[in-house]
């Protein structure tokens, strides 16, 4: 409990302990505002904590080092109370006085009383089973971005190859589950282009002999002038194919065949690869409906959360990818901004009540 | 007043002058000097004797000049400020006059870092303009720098170097003007390969009226091979060689003959430029080709002038 007494003794509840939630928590805690983080997983860190640094011989600005500060600051912080494996059951009250019921990991229930709530439930990756024709889960060398992250995170290149040495040709398929009206995702997932291009460079750095091809519709901004970037990548032997593949099949020799349209030949061709990485899109979190219901939130056109009424009036804020696709740096900026709004509001109230 | 130099008479009587360079030997070999002087006899109005050019030790320019004059060729002895202070310079000027040397070219001198003795301490007590001024003072005012009177003054025709391609042109023209004001009576220029550029510079010189106050001898390096041309272009400061010229040499079957032709074309072109009073050949240790150049350029025989 904060020593300010009266108005703002209650802290802030953050639903979701991913990079957005933790960034907000860190910022609030620095201003000595008590924070409760509720996360349904066993650990905090969400998805970002599983990503690895993508530096080659230079920094590729993946921002992973920024997240590390946050994890460190949030753990063992006396202003932050972390509840993992916990679920939010209900929320009652108004700004300045919310009572939220939480079921803890051990099954017990706990009621906390807070002034503000930040909903930072993040996203879920597109379910690749919906695109069974790409063979995810069927062929062992069809991976998604997170699978490669896992390999990269555990890399010790000198001793343990993070990519099997038999891989000679690798394809990235962009926009899997993004910008797809039929699949109810007309929006761009925003992060996959930068992500896949970085990952490609990292792979190229450790395995310069692997031939890397991108199948794309549009390459989104990657920071800096893309032409420079593009020329460098093409110079390193990267290939870019403007096409949205229709299918991935296993070839007779065990390799993979990507079936796609060759625009110049105006025909469908089959091209052989040893590995295919699917850049799966960003979708609203699986419990988005439940959370919307508990905190009385609305949706945007794409099914991501949207506040009802002005945040500063309801005291319920949204942060990070709960609101829509965002990269790590933007999620952190967004979370910091939310936290700063709360801190400002908090201080104004404290001054008004004569505490400060 | 004693007689003017032959070179000065040639110029003053309006003839197109020809001077050419002789490099003193890096030894005490006098025969070599006599041999080189032999090439020049009758073909040039005066032979320049370089003064430890490129800061490489050679026989003294005054001694060499005296030997060359014994062979019947008048000389322009060169004097740099690099190796002597004002005492030695003035003393050598008197000595040279005593040996009958009548033309003096005053230079700053190549920096010692370009020669074989980069560890040497340079002097530069005077700069080239101050040297010109000193010589003029010794000759016309009969005074040393320190103001003391000279009973028998040295009679010398004073020359200086000009740099048609050095940038900024204005700065170097100021310098040239200062040299004239200090007493320079004739100029020998850096080597010319870019005739058009030289023409522009001469236009600027005429604009200043310098061509009326002094004689300008255009520097010419006879072209031998494409390779030597390229080396010069890359290494020698102040020399600008048009790329077309190098191309032309590269594609020539007989480089020696092509080089000669180009040299003659350059001479022909500079002769036509208003204000050019003569040429100064710098054969760079190929003194033997000088007669052929002079002859084929239509500059032979040299005028016989009455020396006043």
């Amino acid at each position, binding site marked *: 409990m904060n020593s300010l007494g009266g108005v703002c003794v209650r802290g802030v509840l953050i639903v979701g302990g991913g990079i957005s939630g933790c960034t907000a928590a860190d910022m609030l805690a620095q201003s000595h505002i008590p924070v409760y983080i509720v996360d349904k997983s066993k650990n905090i860190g969400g998805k970002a904590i599983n990503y690895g640094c993508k530096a080659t011989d230079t920094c590729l600005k993946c921002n992973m080092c920024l997240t590390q500060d946050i994890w460190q600051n949030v753990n063992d912080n006396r202003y932050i109370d972390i509840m993992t494996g916990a679920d939010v059951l209900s929320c009652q009250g108004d700004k300045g006085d919310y009572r939220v019921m939480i079921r803890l990991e051990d099954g017990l229930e706990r009621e906390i009383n807070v002034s503000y709530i930040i909903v930072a439930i993040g996203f879920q990756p597109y379910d690749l089973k919906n695109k069974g024709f790409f063979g995810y889960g069927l062929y062992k060398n069809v991976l998604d971005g997170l699978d490669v992250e896992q390999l990269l995170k555990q890399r010790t290149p000198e001793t343990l190859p993070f990519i099997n040495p038999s891989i000679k040709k690798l394809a990235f398929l962009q926009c899997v589950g993004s910008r797809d009206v039929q699949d109810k995702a007309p929006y761009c997932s925003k992060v996959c282009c930068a992500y896949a291009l970085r990952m490609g460079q990292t792979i190229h750095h450790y395995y310069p002999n692997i031939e890397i091809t991108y199948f794309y519709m549009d390459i989104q901004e990657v920071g800096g002038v893309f032409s420079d970037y593009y020329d460098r990548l093409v110079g390193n032997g990267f290939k870019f194919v403007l096409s949205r593949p229709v299918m991935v099949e296993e070839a007779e020799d065990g390799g993979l065949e990507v079936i796609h349209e060759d625009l110049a030949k105006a025909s469908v061709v089959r091209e052989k690869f040893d590995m295919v990485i699917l850049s799966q899109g960003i979708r609203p979190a699986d419990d988005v409906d439940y959370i919307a219901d508990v905190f009385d939130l609305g949706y945007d056109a794409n099914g991501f959360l949207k506040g009802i009424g002005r945040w500063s009036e309801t005291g319920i804020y949204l942060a990070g990818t709960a609101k829509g696709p965002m990269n790590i740096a933007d999620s952190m900026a967004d979370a910091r901004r939310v936290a700063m709004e709360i801190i400002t509001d908090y201080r104004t109230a404290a001054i008004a009540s004569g505490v400060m | 007043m004693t007689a003017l130099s032959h070179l000065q008479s040639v110029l003053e009587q309006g003839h197109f002058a020809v001077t050419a360079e002789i490099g003193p030997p890096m030894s005490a070999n006098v025969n070599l000097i006599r041999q080189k002087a032999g090439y020049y006899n009758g073909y040039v109005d005066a032979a320049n004797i370089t003064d430890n050019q490129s800061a490489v030790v050679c026989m003294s320019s005054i001694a060499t000049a005296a030997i060359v004059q014994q062979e019947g060729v008048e000389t322009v002895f060169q004097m740099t400020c690099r190796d002597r202070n004002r005492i030695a310079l003035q003393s050598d000027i008197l000595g040279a006059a005593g040996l009958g040397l009548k033309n003096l070219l005053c230079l*700053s001198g*190549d*920096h010692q870092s370009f020669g074989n003795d980069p560890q040497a301490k340079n002097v530069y*007590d005077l*700069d080239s*303009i*101050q040297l010109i001024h000193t010589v003029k003072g010794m000759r016309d005012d009969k005074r040393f720098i320190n103001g003391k009177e000279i009973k028998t003054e040295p009679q010398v025709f004073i020359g200086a170097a000009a740099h048609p391609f050095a940038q900024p042109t204005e*700065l170097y023209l100021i310098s040239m003007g*200062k040299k004239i004001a200090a007493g320079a009576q004739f100029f020998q220029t850096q080597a010319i390969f870019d005739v058009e550029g030289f023409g522009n510079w001469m236009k600027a010189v005429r604009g200043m009226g310098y061509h009326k106050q002094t004689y300008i001898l255009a520097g010419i390096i006879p072209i031998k091979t494409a390779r030597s041309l390229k080396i010069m272009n890359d290494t020698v400061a102040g020399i600008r060689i048009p790329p077309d010229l190098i191309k032309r040499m590269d594609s020539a079957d007989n480089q020696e003959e092509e080089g000669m032709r180009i040299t003659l074309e350059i001479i022909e072109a500079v002769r036509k430029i208003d204000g050019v009073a003569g040429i100064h050949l710098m054969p760079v240790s190929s003194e033997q080709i000088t007669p052929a150049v002079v002859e084929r350029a239509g500059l032979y025989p040299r005028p016989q002038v009455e020396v006043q």
Partner: protein
Amino acid sequence: MIVGQEKPVTELLDMIKPYKRVLVLGCGTCTTVSLAGGQKEAEFMSALIKLNAAKTGQDVTATTETVKRQCEWEFLDDIADLIEQADAVLSFACGVGIQAIAERYPDKVVLPGVNTKFMGMPIETGVFQVRCAGCGNCILDKRGGICPIARCSKSLLNGPCGGAEDGKCEVNPEIDCAWYLIYNRLKAIGRLDDMKQFFEPKDWSYGRDGGARKLRKEGIAL
């Protein structure tokens, strides 16, 4: 300021070979500012001496001290004990400081740690360039505030030699031709006429070559 440069380590190690107790003495003024002989360089040298001794099995001790200005006896008096205990003083001052120690402690061996280069200034971080030749008879009024004695390789006084190219000195193309700078500056301040004047041979007797070996500040000097 006086700009110095540390001597090569091998030369210094060779120089101190005959001595067992070496005092590495930094100077807190010019050589500190020119990054050649302050406390940092002295400590670095001390460390190297110790390391070298250990490596070659010699019994050498090195101590480090820095005084404000080695060129004044008052500062040297403060460290009389340290100097007393040393076999040799490796001075990181300019040539003036080294000689001040030699004079103040006539029995002591003094060794130069620094090559005294010139009077100059930093033109960028860690890069110094000569500005003054200490000629004792300043001519900067007529040379656009740029000294051809210090900055022209030939110290020409009337104008450039023919060797400069693109405004750079023939001796070192990384260095601007002083006359090119003078010309540009005189032009910029509308005083190009200064350049057209003939400058007489310079009287060097004020500072170089036999000149001012001693200077009296009238009114202060007793």
